[in-house]
Structure formats: C-alpha cells, structure tokens
C-alpha cells in the first residue's frame, strides 16, 4: 500500500514551472494527500497568489508524475484556506533559491507580520547594502532589488 510519505517523495520531483529549482513540496503548496484506494489518489494544493498562472501547469505536472509512477487515477483540487504563506517554504527550498540567485524570504510572517523594510542580502555577493527597486518583479511572488556593492540586480522572493 502506497504511503503519503512515498507520494510526497515523488512530488519532490515536480518543479515549480517558474522557479524550477524549487519543487512543489519546497514551496509548501501541497496541503493534503488522500489515498482513497491504491489506484486512486487525491492531492489538494493551494495557490501562492490569487492570479498565479502556473497553478494549472502545476496540477497537470502533479497528475503526470503520479500517473507515471503507476497510480491509475489522480485528481488535483485547489483550496484557498488557510491562505498560502512563505512561512510554509522549506529551509532546503530557501537554500536552493539563494544558490539559484534569488534572495529567499527574510523573515516569518507569523513572527513578524509588520516588517516590510527587512534587509535583504545580495544572493551574489552577500552584501546587506541593497535597495528595493520595485515590490513587483518578474512574477507575482518576486520583488526587484539592486545591490549597491556588486551593482547586480536580483529578484527577492517576497515574504507573504
């Protein structure tokens, strides 16, 4: 009998289409896994941002991965509650983001909901002298920053 743990391990092979170093498990969007029968699995996911255009592709990729592993019937459903937060991003996920060149979320929302002006270190050179150019970056989840020391621009995965 397949276990939830196994399914979760398989889902670590499903990348976020926009930030492929992260898996859907790293992102924290897998909310529930229901194994109804050995042939029938239901995965409940939650969107990061309301308008996230990648959710459809993510759902398709989850189905594809599990069916390729031999599960005959896979259904993927979305839930909006509780609302997704970067607090659910795994520590390995944050490390992968930094290695990829995207600054990971700098604080936990549940510990510090008021801080907008957190210092974001440059993922390239590590400097703390960085400025926010825009809170809206290449995707809904990212903001655009510039490092004042190495002068490189970089994306910041916003705390949400």
């Amino acid at each position, binding site marked *: 009998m397949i276990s939830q743990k196994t399914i979760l391990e398989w889902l670590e092979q499903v990348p976020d289409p926009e930030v492929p170093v992260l898996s859907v498990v790293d992102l924290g969007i897998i909310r529930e896994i229901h194994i109804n029968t050995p042939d029938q699995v239901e995965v409940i996911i939650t*969107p990061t*941002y*309301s*308008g*996230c255009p990648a959710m459809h592709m993510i759902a398709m990729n989850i189905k594809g991965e599990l069916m390729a592993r031999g599960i005959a019937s896979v259904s993927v459903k979305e839930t909006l509650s509780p609302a997704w937060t970067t607090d659910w991003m795994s520590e390995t996920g944050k490390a992968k983001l930094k290695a990829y060149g995207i600054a990971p979320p700098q604080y936990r929302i549940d510990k510090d909901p008021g801080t*907008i002006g957190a210092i974001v270190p440059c993922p390239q050179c590590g400097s703390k002298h960085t400025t926010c150019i*825009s*809170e*809206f970056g290449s995707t809904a989840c990212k903001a655009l920053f510039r490092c004042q020391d190495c002068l490189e621009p970089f994306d910041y995965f916003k705390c949400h």
Partner: protein
Amino acid sequence: MSNTQSLPAYLLQLADDNFVHGHRLGEWCGHAPELEVDMAITNIALDLIGASRSLYQYVADIEGNGQTEDSYPYLRQEREFRNLLLVELPKGDFADLMARCLFFDIYQYHYYKGLTRSHDERLAAIATKTLKEISYHRRFSSEWVVRLGDGTSESHQRMQDAIHRWWDYTPELFKASSVDQDAFHAGFGIDVPALKPLWEQEIAQVLQEATLSYPLRAEGAWFQQGGREGLHTEHMGYILADVQYLQRAYPGASW
C-alpha cells in the same frame, strides 16, 4: 431575499469590481511611464483578475446549471454587470490612473479586511487571501500619489487635477446597494457605509503628505452612481466589446 439568492448577487458585485479594474490596468501594459511601473501595474492586474476568478468560480459553483467562471465575464450583458463606475472610467494619464487606484485600493483594503470575518467560509477564505495582495496595491498607489503630488510643478498639477476629476465617483463606494443590505443582514456581507470614515481618514493622510487637496462635499450633494444597479457609463460598452468580442464572434470557442 433568501441567502441563496443574495449571495451570488453579492459575489458578482465584488467579482465585477475586480474584473473591470483588472481589465483597465491591463490596458497599461506597454504604456506605463517606466518599465518597473509597467510590471507593477500588470502584476496588480493579475492579482485582481485572479481574485475575480475565485469569486466568479464560487458563483458558478452555487448556480450550477453548466455555468463556469467564464460565463459571467464573457456572456453577461452590460446591465448585468454590477461594478462601481469608478473602475470602468477610461484610461487618462498616469495621474488619473493613480488617483483612481488610490481611491479603489484604500476602499478594497478596508472592505476585504471586513470580509475576512464573513460568516460565509469560502468568501472569508477568498478575502483573507486577497487582502494580502491588496496591501501591496495600496502601498503602490499611495506611494505614487505622494511622489507625483510632492514632485515637480507639472506632476503636482496633474495629480491635483486627477483627484478633482474623479472625486465625484467616490461616494458610490460607500452607498449600500439593496444587495449589500441583504448581504449584511444575512451575515456574509459587510457594512458598506461604515467604510467611509476609515477611507476618508486614510485618503486625507496620503493627500496631505502629497501636498494635495481634495474637494469638500456637502452632505447630500449629487454624485455619480448607478454601477451597482447595472446602469453604467458610456465606457462600459467599449470594455465589453473588447472583452466579449471573441466569445460573441465564435460562440462556445475554447482552446
């Protein structure tokens, strides 16, 4: 009116506001004063369209009968849309956009904050999620109003003109429609007129920092309204012509 009838009507007001405003913001794609602003505006549009999708989908789930989230934006007639007039107004310049966004974003922030306490679980969930995104929108529009107001003499003048030009469209935000009243009494909607003092206080703060003034309104003065009753400005027809053209020309088209 029973709960089951008034909930879809209430959801459609909210969905239409988000959808039409998102559409208008999308018109700025490629036309904003700078690249980062272009990206910001389209990001905000995406948030709004995403929120409208969640709301339209909820209506479709309630009404059943083969309705999908697409049935409402693409197949309703003009008089069935129940958005505020403020969001359907035409493009104008960047100051016009920021004035209307300022008015709308502060309104939405307080509105959705109230909606997180809705007795309807799914609506409260949609509101909780959307509120996080609205916080960014509110910051964006208020920061730009301050930059433009407390900017050059030209930016100050344009921003001041825009505030005055659209001011008469704001009282509609705080007028409870019959759908609003039913929703509030049923426990899933908020007290719309109660938003007014919260909104006014915040608007006054932003405009003061921006060195801008706003018109004084006499109690009971005439204002632009009709959106919640489906009575739109002449601009709504052009929006629907854009949005619905493909479905009307090729009924049932999908890909």
